[in-house]
Structures are given as structure tokens and as C-alpha cells.
């Protein structure tokens, strides 16, 4: 249903970090809000030709979903592992 977006995944011990470069405009708000400093700039570019983000230190991710909440473009999704 509806439009689908490409997804890039990073799997960590507590959750899976999913980002859609089709949606990410590279504002960097998530980098500042992540309490575990998981997220950093990537070398790939997104929909606006700006650098997207990646989960560089995914082993520190606690799957708190703050990054997904503060993303104005809904580019980030977190799947929590049980």
C-alpha cells in the first residue's frame, strides 16, 4: 500500500537501525539527539544531494527510538529486538 522507499539497515545487539536515503535530507537533528552517539554522517548522499546519516556505532544502540521521533522526514525506523 502506498509508495515504498529504499531501506538501508544496520543490525545491532538491541535493535535494527533502518534509514531511507529517499527521505533523508541530511539535517543532522538525529545526530545531536542520540543519547548514545550512535549516528554519524555517511559518505552517501540522499534525496537533496546532501550527506545522509548512518549508524556508525550500532553496537551502542539501545533502540530508544529518539532518532526516529525527532526525524522531521520520517526517514529513520528502529526495529526493537526482544
Amino acid at each position, binding site marked *: 500500500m502506498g*509508495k515504498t522507499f529504499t531501506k538501508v539497515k544496520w543490525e545491532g545487539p538491541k535493535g535494527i537501525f533502518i534509514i531511507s536515503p529517499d527521505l533523508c535530507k541530511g539535517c543532522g537533528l538525529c545526530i545531536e539527539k542520540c543519547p548514545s552517539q550512535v549516528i554519524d554522517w555517511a559518505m552517501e548522499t540522499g534525496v537533496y544531494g546532501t550527506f545522509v546519516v548512518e549508524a556508525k556505532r550500532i553496537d551502542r544502540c539501545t533502540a530508544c527510538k529518539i532518532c526516529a521521533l525527532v*526525524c522531521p522526514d520520517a526517514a529513520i525506523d528502529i526495529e526493537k529486538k526482544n
Partner: protein
Amino acid sequence: MSEISMPLCWRRETKPHQFCPGCGHGLILKALGMAVDRLQIADKVLFGCDIGCSLLAWDFFNLDTVRTHHGRTVPLIVGAKRVRPELVGIAYMGDGGAYAIGAQHLVNATMRNDKVMVVIVNNTTYAMTGGQLAPTTLPGQKTETSPAGRRTEREGFPLRGPEMLAAIAPPGSYVARGSVSRVRRLARLLEKGLENQLQGRGISVVEALSTCPTNWRTNAEDTWKFLEKEMTDYFPLGEFVSPHDRAGGAPKVNGNSRKGGG
């Protein structure tokens, strides 16, 4: 996509949306989408957006949407609500539309206690036209038309809209201020505003402090800092109680303060 990343009432075909990178509109519309989803009222909502950056929300939702002129979103939604009382009217506008050119409509709708919800996006600037001085620009803040910073002796102090409206709001109204730095809290405030309208109690006004990295010329770190420190210091977050709803009722016009005043 989970509920917190993309609410169900968002229109996926129009994403990525047209707002700038880091714009707070996306977060406010996310909070609004979460509130609409939670109350399951998507089939009843009439969403009106204003001129300014807020007009880019015209294709944002799978909701009935209407776009109108500068600050006139409030009377348009009020008119629709009066003709079709079963609708849930949401007027979505910026601080320029609400507090400058559309201030009379907002004040009069609050006085009449019309059963609509007004969402005001406060980013301290006129963003779409290039970042000019707005009624909410902070003292000393540099904009295109105040390159030396806002001088309060010439341009006055920024307007605290919800406080002003709470002072004249009749019983049953709901006035609050949230911030995009607390999206869940903002969604809860919007949900309470919608509930207020669904119960037919009165007007709901929710101001949301927003970000504008493009016109503030800030990076992500400074954007959050300006929003959470400087803006929140001047514009306190919370719910504002109308004098009528306070214990003791509204202040008396011929009270003691008038005695001997000449």
C-alpha cells in the same frame, strides 16, 4: 514504517515532503498525525493551511485539506465548522499569519469561543519570504530586516501569543504551548486540543515552538540550542488556564484596583 516514524494519516505518495532539511513543520505535522491517529478521526477532519511555509502542508495528509490566504485560515475553518458541526476543524498557520496579519481573526475566534483547533507554528521569523522580522522574533535576534538584531525600543518585544489568548479565552477553551524538542508531549497537547473540540467545549489554541535552520543559518547543534535554550526561556512551555477557569472566577471589572483611580 512504525507509527512514530510515519503516522498512518500521512500521505506517503507526497514524501519526501517539501519542507527544508531540519524544518520543524515535519515534526509538528508528525505530532498532529499521531494525535489524529490516536483519536481515529481522520475521516472527520478538515485541515486548513495558511500562506507561508505552512502552505507546503497542502498535500501532506490523507485528510480533506483547504488552503487559504494570509491569516484567514481561522475564519474559513470556523465557517466550515458552523455549517458542518460534525467536522473536526484544524487551522494550521505560522506565527506571521496568526499574530500579525491574521491576529484579528484569531482574537475574535477566541472571544467567540468557536469550536475549532488552531495550531500555530512559532519559528521566530517569516521563513518563506526569506527570514524577515516577525512578531515573535527574539530581542537581539538577527533577521533579514533587523541585521543588527531586534531592538526592543523600536520594534517592541516579541508577542507571547498563548498568554495573550488565555487572558481573553472564555470558559471551556484550551490554550497550550509545546515544542518540537518534545514531540510526544506536543502530540499529547494536540490530542487534548482535539478532544476539547470533539467534546464541544470551545476553542483550542496550541502553539508549537519550531525550528528554521535555513533562515537562522544554524547547524543541527545550534538549531537545538536556540530552540531549547533561548526560545524556551522566552516562550515557556505548558498549558495556560483562562481566568474564567481559575479558582475564584474571572477578575471583577469594578474590583478594588479601580477604587480612587480617578
